Protein backbone atom coordinates (compact mmCIF):
# COMPACT_ATOMS: atom_id res chain seq x y z
CA UNK A 1 0.00 0.00 0.00
CA UNK A 2 2.81 2.38 0.85
CA UNK A 3 4.60 1.72 -2.41
CA UNK A 4 1.36 2.15 -4.27
CA UNK A 5 0.75 5.48 -2.58
CA UNK A 6 4.25 6.80 -3.07
CA UNK A 7 4.12 5.73 -6.67
CA UNK A 8 0.99 7.74 -7.22
CA UNK A 9 2.22 10.80 -5.42
CA UNK A 10 5.45 10.84 -7.42
CA UNK A 11 3.39 10.66 -10.56
CA UNK A 12 1.09 13.34 -9.34
CA UNK A 13 3.94 15.67 -8.47
CA UNK A 14 5.43 15.09 -11.87
CA UNK A 15 2.14 15.97 -13.51
CA UNK A 16 1.57 19.02 -11.40
CA UNK A 17 5.08 20.35 -11.78
CA UNK A 18 4.36 20.63 -15.50
CA UNK A 19 2.08 23.47 -14.67
CA UNK A 20 4.60 25.07 -12.31
CA UNK A 21 2.08 25.11 -9.53
CA UNK A 22 2.75 23.30 -6.34
CA UNK A 23 -0.29 21.66 -4.83
CA UNK A 24 0.90 22.96 -1.46
CA UNK A 25 0.03 26.54 -2.31
CA UNK A 26 -3.30 25.48 -3.61
CA UNK A 27 -4.10 23.56 -0.50
CA UNK A 28 -2.75 26.11 1.92
CA UNK A 29 -5.20 28.71 0.76
CA UNK A 30 -8.23 27.01 2.07
CA UNK A 31 -7.66 24.22 4.49
CA UNK A 32 -11.31 23.24 4.74
CA UNK A 33 -12.20 22.51 1.14
CA UNK A 34 -8.84 21.30 -0.01
CA UNK A 35 -8.87 18.57 -2.58
CA UNK A 36 -7.30 15.42 -1.24
CA UNK A 37 -5.80 14.26 -4.52
CA UNK A 38 -4.13 11.23 -3.05
CA UNK A 39 -7.36 9.96 -1.59
CA UNK A 40 -9.33 10.60 -4.76
CA UNK A 41 -6.85 8.74 -6.90
CA UNK A 42 -6.38 5.85 -4.53
CA UNK A 43 -10.08 5.66 -3.83
CA UNK A 44 -10.86 5.40 -7.51
CA UNK A 45 -8.22 2.85 -8.20
CA UNK A 46 -8.53 0.47 -5.30
CA UNK A 47 -11.13 -2.16 -4.69
CA UNK A 48 -14.15 -1.17 -2.60
CA UNK A 49 -17.07 -2.78 -0.85
CA UNK A 50 -19.54 -0.55 -2.63
CA UNK A 51 -19.65 0.82 -6.14
CA UNK A 52 -19.34 4.55 -5.75
CA UNK A 53 -20.95 6.41 -8.63
CA UNK A 54 -20.90 10.06 -7.66
CA UNK A 55 -21.17 12.45 -4.77
CA UNK A 56 -23.98 14.95 -5.02
CA UNK A 57 -23.48 17.69 -2.50
CA UNK A 58 -22.73 15.73 0.61
CA UNK A 59 -24.57 12.51 -0.21
CA UNK A 60 -22.66 9.67 -1.72
CA UNK A 61 -24.52 7.85 -4.42
CA UNK A 62 -23.27 4.31 -4.70
CA UNK A 63 -24.44 0.83 -5.46
CA UNK A 64 -24.29 -1.27 -2.28
CA UNK A 65 -22.79 -4.70 -2.74
CA UNK A 66 -23.13 -7.83 -0.63
CA UNK A 67 -20.52 -8.49 2.00
CA UNK A 68 -19.73 -12.10 2.78
CA UNK A 69 -17.46 -12.66 5.75
CA UNK A 70 -16.74 -15.50 8.10
CA UNK A 71 -16.05 -14.52 11.63
CA UNK A 72 -13.88 -16.65 13.84
CA UNK A 73 -16.48 -16.39 16.55
CA UNK A 74 -19.88 -16.12 14.92
CA UNK A 75 -19.52 -17.87 11.60
CA UNK A 76 -20.76 -16.68 8.23
CA UNK A 77 -22.33 -13.27 7.78
CA UNK A 78 -23.89 -11.93 4.63
CA UNK A 79 -25.13 -8.36 4.65
CA UNK A 80 -25.36 -5.26 2.56
CA UNK A 81 -22.34 -2.97 2.36
CA UNK A 82 -24.53 0.07 3.06
CA UNK A 83 -24.62 -1.04 6.70
CA UNK A 84 -20.91 -0.28 6.96
CA UNK A 85 -20.84 2.96 4.99
CA UNK A 86 -19.67 6.14 6.69
CA UNK A 87 -17.66 4.27 9.34
CA UNK A 88 -20.67 2.46 10.77
CA UNK A 89 -20.17 -0.78 12.64
CA UNK A 90 -22.42 -3.77 12.03
CA UNK A 91 -22.21 -6.92 14.12
CA UNK A 92 -18.72 -5.88 15.22
CA UNK A 93 -17.59 -5.56 11.60
CA UNK A 94 -16.23 -2.27 10.35
CA UNK A 95 -14.21 -0.96 7.44
CA UNK A 96 -10.80 0.42 8.21
CA UNK A 97 -11.16 3.60 6.18
CA UNK A 98 -7.85 5.11 7.24
CA UNK A 99 -5.63 2.12 6.57
CA UNK A 100 -6.19 -0.77 4.22
CA UNK A 101 -9.85 -0.10 3.48
CA UNK A 102 -10.72 -3.70 4.30
CA UNK A 103 -13.27 -5.17 6.64
CA UNK A 104 -12.11 -5.93 10.18
CA UNK A 105 -13.85 -7.55 13.07
CA UNK A 106 -13.59 -6.48 16.66
CA UNK A 107 -13.55 -9.64 18.71
CA UNK A 108 -15.07 -9.84 22.17
CA UNK A 109 -11.70 -9.63 23.86
CA UNK A 110 -11.05 -6.36 22.03
CA UNK A 111 -8.65 -7.78 19.47
CA UNK A 112 -9.11 -6.54 15.93
CA UNK A 113 -8.72 -9.26 13.31
CA UNK A 114 -9.31 -9.69 9.65
CA UNK A 115 -12.16 -12.14 9.00
CA UNK A 116 -12.27 -14.52 6.09
CA UNK A 117 -13.59 -12.15 3.49
CA UNK A 118 -15.13 -13.24 0.19
CA UNK A 119 -17.34 -10.21 -0.27
CA UNK A 120 -18.67 -9.30 -3.69
CA UNK A 121 -16.56 -6.18 -4.04
CA UNK A 122 -16.50 -3.66 -6.86
CA UNK A 123 -13.76 -5.58 -8.64
CA UNK A 124 -15.65 -8.86 -8.29
CA UNK A 125 -18.75 -7.30 -9.84
CA UNK A 126 -16.58 -5.90 -12.61
CA UNK A 127 -15.09 -9.33 -13.22
CA UNK A 128 -18.52 -10.89 -13.47
CA UNK A 129 -19.61 -8.17 -15.88
CA UNK A 130 -16.59 -9.02 -18.02
CA UNK A 131 -17.39 -12.72 -17.77
CA UNK A 132 -20.99 -12.07 -18.81
CA UNK A 133 -19.82 -9.93 -21.70
CA UNK A 134 -17.37 -12.56 -22.87
CA UNK A 135 -19.95 -15.32 -22.67
CA UNK A 136 -22.41 -13.14 -24.55
CA UNK A 137 -19.93 -12.23 -27.27
CA UNK A 138 -18.19 -15.52 -27.86
CA UNK A 139 -20.95 -18.01 -27.15
CA UNK A 140 -23.22 -15.76 -29.22
CA UNK A 141 -20.77 -15.84 -32.11
CA UNK A 142 -20.34 -19.59 -31.76
CA UNK A 143 -24.12 -19.96 -31.90
CA UNK A 144 -24.15 -17.97 -35.14
CA UNK A 145 -21.65 -20.43 -36.58
CA UNK A 146 -23.65 -23.41 -35.45
CA UNK A 147 -26.68 -22.10 -37.29
CA UNK A 148 -24.73 -21.79 -40.52
CA UNK A 149 -24.87 -24.60 -43.03
CA UNK A 150 -21.62 -26.38 -43.78
CA UNK A 151 -19.35 -24.25 -45.93
CA UNK A 152 -21.72 -21.34 -45.44
CA UNK A 153 -20.81 -17.74 -46.09
CA UNK A 154 -18.20 -15.91 -44.07
CA UNK A 155 -19.75 -13.85 -41.28
CA UNK A 156 -20.39 -10.17 -41.66
CA UNK A 157 -20.80 -7.37 -39.15
CA UNK A 158 -20.14 -8.05 -35.48
CA UNK A 159 -19.47 -11.77 -35.84
CA UNK A 160 -17.06 -10.97 -38.64
CA UNK A 161 -15.28 -8.46 -36.45
CA UNK A 162 -14.94 -10.96 -33.62
CA UNK A 163 -13.79 -13.64 -36.02
CA UNK A 164 -11.16 -11.33 -37.46
CA UNK A 165 -10.04 -10.34 -33.98
CA UNK A 166 -9.84 -13.91 -32.71
CA UNK A 167 -8.07 -15.16 -35.79
CA UNK A 168 -5.55 -12.33 -35.79
CA UNK A 169 -4.63 -13.24 -32.21
CA UNK A 170 -4.42 -16.92 -33.09
CA UNK A 171 -2.45 -16.47 -36.28
CA UNK A 172 -0.24 -13.52 -35.39
CA UNK A 173 0.43 -14.10 -31.70
CA UNK A 174 -0.29 -17.62 -30.54
CA UNK A 175 0.75 -19.67 -33.54
CA UNK A 176 4.17 -18.10 -34.15
CA UNK A 177 4.97 -17.69 -30.44
CA UNK A 178 4.05 -21.13 -29.16
CA UNK A 179 5.07 -22.88 -32.33
CA UNK A 180 3.11 -24.56 -35.06
CA UNK A 181 3.34 -28.00 -33.46
CA UNK A 182 2.01 -27.30 -29.98
CA UNK A 183 -0.15 -24.19 -30.13
CA UNK A 184 -3.55 -25.90 -30.39
CA UNK A 185 -4.17 -26.95 -26.77
CA UNK A 186 -3.10 -23.54 -25.43
CA UNK A 187 -5.25 -21.50 -27.78
CA UNK A 188 -8.38 -21.43 -25.57
CA UNK A 189 -6.44 -20.33 -22.50
CA UNK A 190 -4.42 -17.66 -24.29
CA UNK A 191 -7.48 -16.32 -26.09
CA UNK A 192 -9.47 -16.28 -22.87
CA UNK A 193 -6.65 -14.46 -21.09
CA UNK A 194 -6.30 -11.98 -23.94
CA UNK A 195 -9.96 -11.09 -24.19
CA UNK A 196 -10.39 -11.07 -20.42
CA UNK A 197 -7.58 -8.56 -20.02
CA UNK A 198 -8.61 -6.56 -23.05
CA UNK A 199 -12.28 -6.23 -22.12
CA UNK A 200 -11.40 -5.53 -18.49
CA UNK A 201 -8.96 -2.82 -19.58
CA UNK A 202 -11.56 -1.25 -21.82
CA UNK A 203 -14.26 -1.31 -19.17
CA UNK A 204 -11.74 0.13 -16.73
CA UNK A 205 -11.51 3.20 -18.93
CA UNK A 206 -15.21 3.92 -18.65
CA UNK A 207 -15.68 6.51 -15.92
CA UNK A 208 -18.98 5.14 -14.57
CA UNK A 209 -20.86 1.89 -14.01
CA UNK A 210 -20.72 -0.70 -15.64
CA UNK A 211 -17.04 0.07 -15.98
CA UNK A 212 -14.48 2.01 -14.08
CA UNK A 213 -13.17 -0.60 -11.70
CA UNK A 214 -9.43 -0.85 -11.96
CA UNK A 215 -9.39 -4.65 -12.17
CA UNK A 216 -6.28 -5.29 -14.24
CA UNK A 217 -4.53 -2.66 -12.10
CA UNK A 218 -5.21 -4.84 -9.09
CA UNK A 219 -2.25 -7.02 -8.18
CA UNK A 220 -4.53 -9.90 -7.19
CA UNK A 221 -5.87 -10.20 -10.70
CA UNK A 222 -2.51 -9.97 -12.41
CA UNK A 223 -1.17 -12.40 -9.81
CA UNK A 224 -3.89 -14.88 -10.71
CA UNK A 225 -3.32 -14.49 -14.44
CA UNK A 226 0.42 -14.92 -13.95
CA UNK A 227 -0.21 -18.08 -11.89
CA UNK A 228 -2.32 -19.44 -14.74
CA UNK A 229 0.50 -18.80 -17.18
CA UNK A 230 2.99 -20.29 -14.72
CA UNK A 231 0.91 -23.47 -14.53
CA UNK A 232 0.45 -23.59 -18.30
CA UNK A 233 4.20 -23.31 -18.78
CA UNK A 234 5.37 -25.72 -16.12
CA UNK A 235 2.66 -28.39 -16.01
CA UNK A 236 3.04 -29.19 -19.69
CA UNK A 237 6.74 -28.47 -20.21
CA UNK A 238 8.55 -31.35 -21.88
CA UNK A 239 11.73 -33.03 -20.68
CA UNK A 240 13.96 -30.74 -22.73
CA UNK A 241 12.52 -27.81 -20.84
CA UNK A 242 13.35 -29.33 -17.48
CA UNK A 243 16.73 -30.49 -18.66
CA UNK A 244 17.52 -26.94 -19.80
CA UNK A 245 16.69 -25.73 -16.33
CA UNK A 246 18.57 -28.26 -14.21
CA UNK A 247 21.31 -29.32 -16.60
CA UNK A 248 21.66 -26.59 -19.22
CA UNK A 249 24.18 -26.87 -22.00
CA UNK A 250 26.88 -24.69 -20.53
CA UNK A 251 30.49 -25.46 -19.54
CA UNK A 252 30.47 -28.00 -16.75
CA UNK A 253 32.14 -25.76 -14.15
CA UNK A 254 29.09 -23.52 -14.31
CA UNK A 255 26.82 -26.30 -13.20
CA UNK A 256 28.97 -28.91 -11.51
CA UNK A 257 30.05 -28.47 -8.03
CA UNK A 258 28.09 -25.26 -7.50
CA UNK A 259 24.91 -25.38 -9.59
CA UNK A 260 25.20 -21.77 -10.68
CA UNK A 261 23.31 -21.92 -13.93
CA UNK A 262 20.59 -24.26 -12.65
CA UNK A 263 19.91 -21.82 -9.82
CA UNK A 264 19.65 -18.92 -12.24
CA UNK A 265 17.46 -20.93 -14.59
CA UNK A 266 15.30 -22.05 -11.70
CA UNK A 267 14.74 -18.46 -10.66
CA UNK A 268 13.89 -17.73 -14.26
CA UNK A 269 10.94 -20.08 -13.93
CA UNK A 270 9.41 -17.71 -11.39
CA UNK A 271 10.65 -14.39 -12.70
CA UNK A 272 8.96 -14.88 -16.06
CA UNK A 273 5.38 -14.95 -14.73
CA UNK A 274 6.36 -12.43 -12.08
CA UNK A 275 7.39 -10.00 -14.79
CA UNK A 276 4.04 -10.60 -16.49
CA UNK A 277 2.23 -9.83 -13.26
CA UNK A 278 4.12 -6.61 -12.53
CA UNK A 279 4.05 -5.37 -16.12
CA UNK A 280 0.30 -5.54 -16.49
CA UNK A 281 -0.32 -4.20 -13.00
CA UNK A 282 2.09 -1.26 -13.26
CA UNK A 283 0.91 -0.25 -16.71
CA UNK A 284 -2.71 -0.19 -15.75
CA UNK A 285 -2.11 1.58 -12.44
CA UNK A 286 0.12 4.14 -14.12
CA UNK A 287 -2.40 4.92 -16.82
CA UNK A 288 -5.31 5.22 -14.44
CA UNK A 289 -3.32 7.32 -12.00
CA UNK A 290 -2.31 9.72 -14.74
CA UNK A 291 -5.84 10.19 -15.98
CA UNK A 292 -7.16 10.65 -12.45
CA UNK A 293 -4.38 13.07 -11.60
CA UNK A 294 -5.13 15.14 -14.68
CA UNK A 295 -8.76 15.17 -13.69
CA UNK A 296 -7.80 16.38 -10.22
CA UNK A 297 -5.90 19.30 -11.73
CA UNK A 298 -9.24 20.80 -12.68
CA UNK A 299 -10.48 20.64 -9.09
CA UNK A 300 -7.24 21.91 -7.58
CA UNK A 301 -6.92 24.89 -9.91
CA UNK A 302 -10.57 25.64 -9.35
CA UNK A 303 -9.55 27.18 -6.05
CA UNK A 304 -6.94 29.46 -7.61
CA UNK A 305 -9.18 31.84 -9.44
CA UNK A 306 -10.99 31.85 -12.72
CA UNK A 307 -8.19 32.80 -15.13
CA UNK A 308 -5.62 30.24 -13.99
CA UNK A 309 -8.26 27.65 -13.45
CA UNK A 310 -9.77 28.04 -16.92
CA UNK A 311 -6.45 27.94 -18.72
CA UNK A 312 -5.08 25.04 -16.71
CA UNK A 313 -8.33 23.13 -16.94
CA UNK A 314 -8.16 23.45 -20.67
CA UNK A 315 -4.61 22.13 -20.69
CA UNK A 316 -5.47 19.25 -18.42
CA UNK A 317 -8.60 18.53 -20.42
CA UNK A 318 -6.59 18.23 -23.61
CA UNK A 319 -4.06 16.05 -21.81
CA UNK A 320 -6.86 13.90 -20.43
CA UNK A 321 -8.17 13.28 -23.90
CA UNK A 322 -4.68 12.40 -24.99
CA UNK A 323 -4.20 10.08 -22.02
CA UNK A 324 -7.52 8.39 -22.60
CA UNK A 325 -6.60 7.77 -26.20
CA UNK A 326 -3.25 6.47 -25.06
CA UNK A 327 -4.90 4.23 -22.49
CA UNK A 328 -7.15 2.85 -25.18
CA UNK A 329 -4.01 1.84 -26.99
CA UNK A 330 -2.42 0.55 -23.79
CA UNK A 331 -5.55 -1.50 -23.05
CA UNK A 332 -4.92 -3.41 -26.24
CA UNK A 333 -1.15 -3.43 -26.05
CA UNK A 334 -1.03 -4.80 -22.51
CA UNK A 335 -3.48 -7.58 -23.33
CA UNK A 336 -1.46 -8.28 -26.45
CA UNK A 337 1.87 -8.26 -24.62
CA UNK A 338 0.57 -10.47 -21.83
CA UNK A 339 -0.76 -13.00 -24.31
CA UNK A 340 2.30 -12.87 -26.50
CA UNK A 341 4.77 -13.29 -23.65
CA UNK A 342 2.68 -16.10 -22.16
CA UNK A 343 2.68 -17.73 -25.57
CA UNK A 344 6.43 -17.28 -25.94
CA UNK A 345 7.09 -18.75 -22.49
CA UNK A 346 4.81 -21.68 -23.23
CA UNK A 347 6.58 -22.10 -26.55
CA UNK A 348 9.94 -22.19 -24.76
CA UNK A 349 8.69 -25.08 -22.64
CA UNK A 350 8.13 -27.09 -25.80
CA UNK A 351 11.08 -27.93 -27.94
CA UNK A 352 10.29 -27.24 -31.51
CA UNK A 353 10.60 -30.28 -33.78
CA UNK A 354 13.50 -28.52 -35.51
CA UNK A 355 15.53 -28.27 -32.33
CA UNK A 356 14.95 -31.91 -31.44
CA UNK A 357 16.85 -33.05 -34.48
CA UNK A 358 20.06 -31.55 -33.17
Amino acid sequence: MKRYASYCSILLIAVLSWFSITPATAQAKDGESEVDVKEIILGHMSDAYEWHITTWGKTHISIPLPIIVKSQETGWHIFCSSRLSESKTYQNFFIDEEGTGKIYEKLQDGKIVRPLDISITKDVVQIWIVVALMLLIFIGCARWYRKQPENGDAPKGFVGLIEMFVMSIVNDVIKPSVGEAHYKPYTPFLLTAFFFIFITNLLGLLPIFPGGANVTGNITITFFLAICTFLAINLFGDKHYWKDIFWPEVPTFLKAPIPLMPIIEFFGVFTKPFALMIRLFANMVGGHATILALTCVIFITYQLGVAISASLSLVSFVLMIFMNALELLVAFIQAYVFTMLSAVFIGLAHTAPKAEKK
Partner: protein
Amino acid sequence: MSPDFGLLFWMLLAFLIVFILVGKYGFPVIVKMVEERKKFIDESLKNAREANEKLANIKSESEAILRTAHEKQAQILKEAMATRDSIIKEARDKAQEEGHKILLEAQAQIAAEKENALQEIRSTVVDLSIRVAERLLRKKLESDSEQEKLINNMLNDMTKN
Protein backbone atom coordinates in the same frame (compact mmCIF):
# COMPACT_ATOMS: atom_id res chain seq x y z
CA MET B 1 -0.13 -4.49 -2.00
CA SER B 2 -0.74 -8.10 -1.33
CA PRO B 3 -3.13 -10.31 -3.21
CA ASP B 4 -6.51 -10.30 -1.57
CA PHE B 5 -7.96 -13.69 -0.81
CA GLY B 6 -11.61 -12.85 -1.48
CA LEU B 7 -10.86 -11.27 -4.82
CA LEU B 8 -8.57 -14.15 -5.72
CA PHE B 9 -11.32 -16.62 -4.90
CA TRP B 10 -13.87 -14.86 -7.06
CA MET B 11 -11.36 -14.31 -9.83
CA LEU B 12 -10.54 -18.01 -9.81
CA LEU B 13 -14.21 -18.92 -9.98
CA ALA B 14 -15.05 -16.37 -12.67
CA PHE B 15 -12.02 -17.09 -14.78
CA LEU B 16 -12.53 -20.85 -14.55
CA ILE B 17 -16.15 -20.50 -15.61
CA VAL B 18 -15.39 -18.22 -18.51
CA PHE B 19 -12.39 -20.32 -19.50
CA ILE B 20 -14.35 -23.57 -19.48
CA LEU B 21 -17.38 -22.17 -21.28
CA VAL B 22 -15.70 -19.89 -23.78
CA GLY B 23 -12.71 -22.17 -24.16
CA LYS B 24 -14.96 -25.09 -24.97
CA TYR B 25 -17.98 -23.63 -26.71
CA GLY B 26 -16.68 -20.29 -27.94
CA PHE B 27 -13.20 -20.08 -29.41
CA PRO B 28 -12.81 -23.64 -30.72
CA VAL B 29 -16.03 -23.23 -32.70
CA ILE B 30 -14.83 -19.99 -34.25
CA VAL B 31 -11.32 -21.27 -34.94
CA LYS B 32 -12.63 -24.56 -36.29
CA MET B 33 -15.08 -22.83 -38.59
CA VAL B 34 -12.42 -20.49 -39.90
CA GLU B 35 -10.03 -23.35 -40.48
CA GLU B 36 -12.71 -25.39 -42.21
CA ARG B 37 -13.54 -22.40 -44.36
CA LYS B 38 -9.85 -21.96 -45.14
CA LYS B 39 -9.61 -25.60 -46.14
CA PHE B 40 -12.75 -25.29 -48.20
CA ILE B 41 -11.42 -22.21 -49.97
CA ASP B 42 -8.08 -23.89 -50.61
CA GLU B 43 -9.81 -26.93 -52.01
CA SER B 44 -12.10 -24.82 -54.11
CA LEU B 45 -9.13 -22.95 -55.51
CA LYS B 46 -7.38 -26.20 -56.26
CA ASN B 47 -10.49 -27.59 -57.90
CA ALA B 48 -10.92 -24.44 -59.92
CA ARG B 49 -7.32 -24.62 -61.09
CA GLU B 50 -7.74 -28.26 -62.04
CA ALA B 51 -10.99 -27.49 -63.79
CA ASN B 52 -9.28 -24.70 -65.69
CA GLU B 53 -6.53 -27.04 -66.74
CA LYS B 54 -9.08 -29.61 -67.79
CA LEU B 55 -10.96 -26.98 -69.69
CA ALA B 56 -7.79 -25.94 -71.48
CA ASN B 57 -7.11 -29.60 -72.27
CA ILE B 58 -10.62 -30.06 -73.52
CA LYS B 59 -10.28 -26.99 -75.68
CA SER B 60 -7.10 -28.19 -77.30
CA GLU B 61 -8.58 -31.65 -77.63
CA SER B 62 -11.69 -30.34 -79.24
CA GLU B 63 -9.59 -28.26 -81.56
CA ALA B 64 -7.63 -31.34 -82.52
CA ILE B 65 -10.83 -33.27 -83.05
CA LEU B 66 -12.20 -30.46 -85.16
CA ARG B 67 -9.03 -30.37 -87.19
CA THR B 68 -9.08 -34.12 -87.86
CA ALA B 69 -12.76 -33.88 -88.65
CA HIS B 70 -12.03 -31.17 -91.19
CA GLU B 71 -9.29 -33.25 -92.70
CA LYS B 72 -11.54 -36.27 -92.86
CA GLN B 73 -14.27 -34.23 -94.40
CA ALA B 74 -11.93 -32.95 -97.07
CA GLN B 75 -10.67 -36.44 -97.70
CA ILE B 76 -14.17 -37.88 -97.91
CA LEU B 77 -15.20 -35.14 -100.27
CA LYS B 78 -12.21 -35.81 -102.40
CA GLU B 79 -12.91 -39.53 -102.42
CA ALA B 80 -16.53 -38.92 -103.20
CA MET B 81 -15.59 -36.69 -106.07
CA ALA B 82 -13.24 -39.33 -107.38
CA THR B 83 -15.90 -41.99 -107.02
CA ARG B 84 -18.42 -39.80 -108.75
CA ASP B 85 -16.04 -39.17 -111.59
CA SER B 86 -15.23 -42.82 -111.95
CA ILE B 87 -18.90 -43.77 -111.78
CA ILE B 88 -19.77 -41.24 -114.40
CA LYS B 89 -16.91 -42.39 -116.59
CA GLU B 90 -17.88 -45.99 -116.16
CA ALA B 91 -21.49 -45.21 -116.95
CA ARG B 92 -20.48 -43.27 -119.95
CA ASP B 93 -18.24 -46.09 -121.16
CA LYS B 94 -20.92 -48.60 -120.56
CA ALA B 95 -23.47 -46.47 -122.33
CA GLN B 96 -21.14 -46.02 -125.22
CA GLU B 97 -20.48 -49.73 -125.37
CA GLU B 98 -24.14 -50.49 -125.08
CA GLY B 99 -24.94 -47.99 -127.74
CA HIS B 100 -22.34 -49.44 -129.97
CA LYS B 101 -23.68 -52.89 -129.34
CA ILE B 102 -27.22 -51.76 -130.01
CA LEU B 103 -26.05 -50.04 -133.13
CA LEU B 104 -24.30 -53.16 -134.27
CA GLU B 105 -27.33 -55.28 -133.51
CA ALA B 106 -29.53 -52.79 -135.28
CA GLN B 107 -27.23 -52.82 -138.25
CA ALA B 108 -27.23 -56.60 -138.24
CA GLN B 109 -30.98 -56.65 -137.93
CA ILE B 110 -31.28 -54.08 -140.66
CA ALA B 111 -28.99 -56.17 -142.82
CA ALA B 112 -31.02 -59.28 -142.07
CA GLU B 113 -34.25 -57.44 -142.74
CA LYS B 114 -32.77 -56.14 -145.93
CA GLU B 115 -31.74 -59.65 -146.90
CA ASN B 116 -35.19 -60.96 -146.04
CA ALA B 117 -36.76 -58.15 -148.00
CA LEU B 118 -34.49 -58.83 -150.92
CA GLN B 119 -35.29 -62.51 -150.65
CA GLU B 120 -38.94 -61.78 -150.50
CA ILE B 121 -38.67 -59.39 -153.40
CA ARG B 122 -36.68 -61.94 -155.24
CA SER B 123 -39.21 -64.70 -154.59
CA THR B 124 -42.01 -62.34 -155.49
CA VAL B 125 -40.17 -61.40 -158.63
CA VAL B 126 -39.60 -65.11 -159.36
CA ASP B 127 -43.21 -65.82 -158.66
CA LEU B 128 -44.33 -63.00 -160.85
CA SER B 129 -41.93 -63.86 -163.55
CA ILE B 130 -43.03 -67.52 -163.36
CA ARG B 131 -46.61 -66.45 -163.64
CA VAL B 132 -45.70 -64.15 -166.50
CA ALA B 133 -43.74 -66.91 -168.00
CA GLU B 134 -46.60 -69.35 -167.55
CA ARG B 135 -48.88 -67.09 -169.36
CA LEU B 136 -46.38 -66.50 -172.05
CA LEU B 137 -45.61 -70.17 -172.23
CA ARG B 138 -49.29 -71.24 -172.43
CA LYS B 139 -49.58 -69.07 -175.44
CA LYS B 140 -46.25 -70.00 -177.09
CA LEU B 141 -46.10 -73.70 -176.22
CA GLU B 142 -49.00 -74.57 -178.30
CA SER B 143 -46.61 -75.72 -180.91
CA ASP B 144 -44.46 -78.80 -180.07
CA SER B 145 -41.38 -77.65 -181.75
CA GLU B 146 -41.35 -74.53 -179.90
CA GLN B 147 -41.91 -76.53 -176.75
CA GLU B 148 -39.01 -78.75 -177.34
CA LYS B 149 -36.77 -75.81 -178.15
CA LEU B 150 -37.58 -74.11 -175.06
CA ILE B 151 -37.15 -77.15 -173.00
CA ASN B 152 -33.76 -77.66 -174.45
CA ASN B 153 -32.79 -74.07 -173.81
CA MET B 154 -33.84 -74.39 -170.27
CA LEU B 155 -32.05 -77.61 -169.80
CA ASN B 156 -28.99 -75.96 -171.17
CA ASP B 157 -29.26 -73.15 -168.82
CA MET B 158 -29.75 -75.46 -165.88
CA THR B 159 -26.86 -77.62 -166.69
CA LYS B 160 -24.71 -74.63 -167.26
CA ASN B 161 -25.60 -73.51 -163.85
